C-alpha cells in the first residue's frame, strides 16, 4: 500500500524534466542576446560597485548586501521570463530589481534614504517593490519570501492565468522550516512556482558544507516529489536555457520545480562582513576563471561579434546610467517626516 502510494517510486522518469544538468553545455546565444546579457549584468555589477563605494562614503547606511558575482542568475532567468511572471527574493535584491526593469535612480535613492526612493525611504536596501514590474520584494526575514512566493503561485493558479512565480532564495534560506512547508504545499496543489536556489556557497559566513547536510540543493525537493536540477549559475546561457525549460514545466501545469544555481558571491555577506571565512585565492580563482560577465566579453571578442571599442562603449553607457543614479540619489531631498505616518494602515 505504501509503495503504491509512492508516486515518485512509481514514475521517476516522468517526474524529471531533464536527465542531465543543463549546465553541461549552455546553448549558444545570438549576438543580440549576448549583448543584452552583457549590458544587463554590467548594469547590476556597476550599480553594486557604486553602492559599495557610496556605503563606504557614508551615503548609504543600514544593511547593504551586494549581488556582485551572481549577476548571470537573475539576468538569465529574466531573459527567459514572460510578461506577467513574478519575482520575489530576500535581501540581496538590488540585482533582481534592476533586472526587473526598475529604475536605478529609484533603487539608489532608496539606498540613500531619499524621498524618490521606491519606498520613500521607509524600506531601505532590503525592502523595495514594484507591482508594475511584478517584483514583489525585497524581504528581510530569511525564508519568508519562499512561502510568499508560493502564495503568488497560488493566486496564479486560482486565477487560472499562465504566470509563474520565480521565488529566489539562497543556500542558507534552504534550511529554514517554512521552505519545507512551502515545497509540500506547492507540489500538493501543483502550483506554478520555480524555486531558484542561489547557491553562492556561503550562508552568511558559514560555508555550505558546514551548514547543510545535503549540499546538492536540487535534491531538496525529492521527498516532496519536486524535480530539480543544478545549473551553472555563472553561465548566463545555461541559466536562460534552464529557466525556459522550468517555465514551460510550470506553465504546463506540472507544479513546482527547483533550479539550483551554482554561483558565487564575491563580496562579504553584507558591507560589514570582511569575509575572513574564505581565502582571497578562492575568490580570485572564481573571478578569473568563471566570472559571468567576462565569459560573455570573451565570447563576443573571440567570435568577433564585438570589438574592444564596442565593449568599452557599452561599459561607458552603463557607467553613465549608474553615475546619474548616484548623482540623483545624493541630491534628492530626504523624506518629509510626515511620511512616517502614511501607509501604516490603509
Amino acid at each position, binding site marked *: 500500500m505504501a509503495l503504491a502510494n509512492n508516486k515518485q517510486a512509481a514514475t521517476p522518469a516522468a517526474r524529471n524534466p531533464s536527465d542531465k544538468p543543463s549546465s553541461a553545455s549552455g546553448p549558444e546565444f545570438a549576438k543580440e542576446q549576448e549583448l543584452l546579457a552583457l549590458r544587463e549584468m554590467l548594469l547590476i555589477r556597476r550599480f553594486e560597485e557604486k553602492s559599495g563605494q557610496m556605503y563606504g562614503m557614508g551615503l548609504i547606511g543600514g544593511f547593504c548586501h551586494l549581488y556582485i558575482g551572481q549577476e548571470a542568475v537573475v539576468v538569465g532567468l529574466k531573459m527567459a521570463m514572460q510578461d506577467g511572471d513574478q519575482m520575489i527574493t530576500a535581501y540581496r535584491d538590488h540585482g533582481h530589481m534592476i533586472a526587473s526593469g526598475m529604475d536605478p535612480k529609484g533603487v539608489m535613492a532608496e539606498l540613500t534614504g531619499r524621498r524618490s526612493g521606491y519606498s520613500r525611504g521607509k524600506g531601505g536596501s532590503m525592502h*523595495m517593490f514594484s507591482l508594475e514590474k511584478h517584483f514583489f520584494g525585497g524581504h528581510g526575514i530569511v525564508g519568508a519570501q519562499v*512561502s510568499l512566493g508560493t502564495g503568488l503561485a497560488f493566486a496564479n493558479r486560482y486565477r487560472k492565468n499562465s504566470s509563474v512565480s520565480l521565488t529566489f532564495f539562497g543556500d542558507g534560506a534552504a534550511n529554514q522550516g517554512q521552505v519545507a512547508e512551502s515545497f509540500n*504545499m506547492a507540489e500538493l496543489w501543483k502550483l506554478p512556482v520555480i524555486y531558484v536556489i542561489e547557491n553562492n556557497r556561503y550562508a552568511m559566513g558559514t560555508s555550505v558544507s558546514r551548514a547543510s547536510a545535503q549540499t546538492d540543493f536540487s535534491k531538496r525537493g525529492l521527498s516532496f516529489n519536486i524535480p530539480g536540477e543544478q545549473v551553472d549559475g555563472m553561465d548566463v546561457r545555461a541559466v536562460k536555457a534552464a529557466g525556459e525549460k522550468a517555465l514551460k514545466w510550470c506553465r504546463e501545469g506540472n507544479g513546482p520545480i527547483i533550479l539550483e544555481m551554482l554561483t558565487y558571491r564575491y563580496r562579504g555577506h553584507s558591507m560589514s562582513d570582511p569575509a575572513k571565512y574564505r581565502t582571497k585565492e578562492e575568490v580570485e580563482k572564481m573571478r578569473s576563471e568563471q566570472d559571468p560577465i567576462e565569459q560573455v566579453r570573451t565570447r563576443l571578442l573571440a567570435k568577433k561579434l564585438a570589438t574592444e571599442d564596442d565593449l568599452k562603449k557599452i561599459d561607458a553607457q552603463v557607467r553613465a546610467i549608474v553615475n546619474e543614479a548616484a548623482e540623483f540619489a545624493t541630491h534628492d531631498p530626504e523624506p518629509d517626516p510626515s511620511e512616517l505616518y502614511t501607509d501604516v494602515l490603509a
Partner: protein
Amino acid sequence: MAELTYRDAVSRAIAQEMARDNNVVFLGEDIGKAGGVFKATVGLYERFGPLRVRDTPISEQAILGAAMGAAMTGLKPIAEIMFSDFLAVCFDHIANEMAKNRYMSNGQLKCPLVVRTANGAGSRFGAQHSQSVENWAMMIPGLKVVAPSSPADVIGLFAAAVRDPDPVIFFEHKSLYGMKGEVPDGEILDTLGTAKILRPGKDATIIALALMVGRAMEAAERLKAEHGIDCEVIDVRSLVPLDTRCILGSVAKTHRLFTVEENPRLCGWGAEIASIVADESFYDLDGPIVRITTPHLPLPAADNLEDVVLPTVDRIVDTVKRSMA
C-alpha cells in the same frame, strides 16, 4: 431575525463574503471536508468547492505565506489558524510580513486578508490551546484586531474585516461557539473600530472583550440589584482601531473604569486602555483604574483550576464593589 449560534454565524459570515466576491478564498487545516475542528465552517466546502475552500497541510507558516502572497496580488484570502496559540508558529508572517508590507512598499503592496483563529480558555485544553493572545496582535503596528462577543457581531465584523484593505486578525472565542443570539436576516456589515455600549450606567464603566463581555454584563446586573451600583458595560469589539471616543466618553460620564480581561495580566489590552485613559482623562477619574485579569500564569487544564484563574462574575462583582466602597 433568526436565532443562530456563534459557530453557525462564522460559517454564515464566510459564506456571505464568498458568495459576494470571487476573490475571497478560504484556507486552513480541516476547514473543508471536515467542517472545521469547531464545526464553524460546516457546509462551505460543499457550497463553494475545493478550489475556494482549501484544506491545507498542517503548515501554519505556509498557510499564512500562501494567503499573504495571494493577497499581495489582490485576492482576499481568509486563513484559519486553528488555535490562536498557533499564531506563535507562524508569527513571522503576522509580525514581520503582513503587518509591514504596506509601509515598506510605500503603499504599493496591499494585504487584504483575514486571519481567523479560535482564542481563549474554558475548554480545559491546557496551556498551549487556551490562551487569549489578542495582545500579541495588538502590539504590532500595521494590523487590525477584532474579537466579537455575539453571533450578530461575528457576521458584521467579519464582513467588515474581509472588505477591509488591511490585514485583520479575527479572534473568535472558542467558549462562545455554542452561544446563541438573535441575528438579522440578509446581509450584515458592521464597522471596524467601533465599541458598543451594551448596558448604559452612571456609576462606573466596565469594558470587556469576547467571553468576558457576558460575564461583565451579568456582574453589572448583580451589582445593580445587590449593591445599587449602576455600571455601564462596553464591549470593546475592536482593539485596533480602538474606539477611544466611546471609552473616554463613558469615563467622562461615570468617572470610574474597570477592565475585564482574559489575557494574562502583563501587557494585556486593558493596560493600554488604562494608559490612554490616564493620559487623556485623568481628571475625569474619581478613583484608580482597576484591571480584572487572569493572573500572569500559563493556563492549567483541571476544571477547578481553569475556572478559578479566569475572571469570574463573582470576582468582577467583588472587585467593583470593594473599589467603589
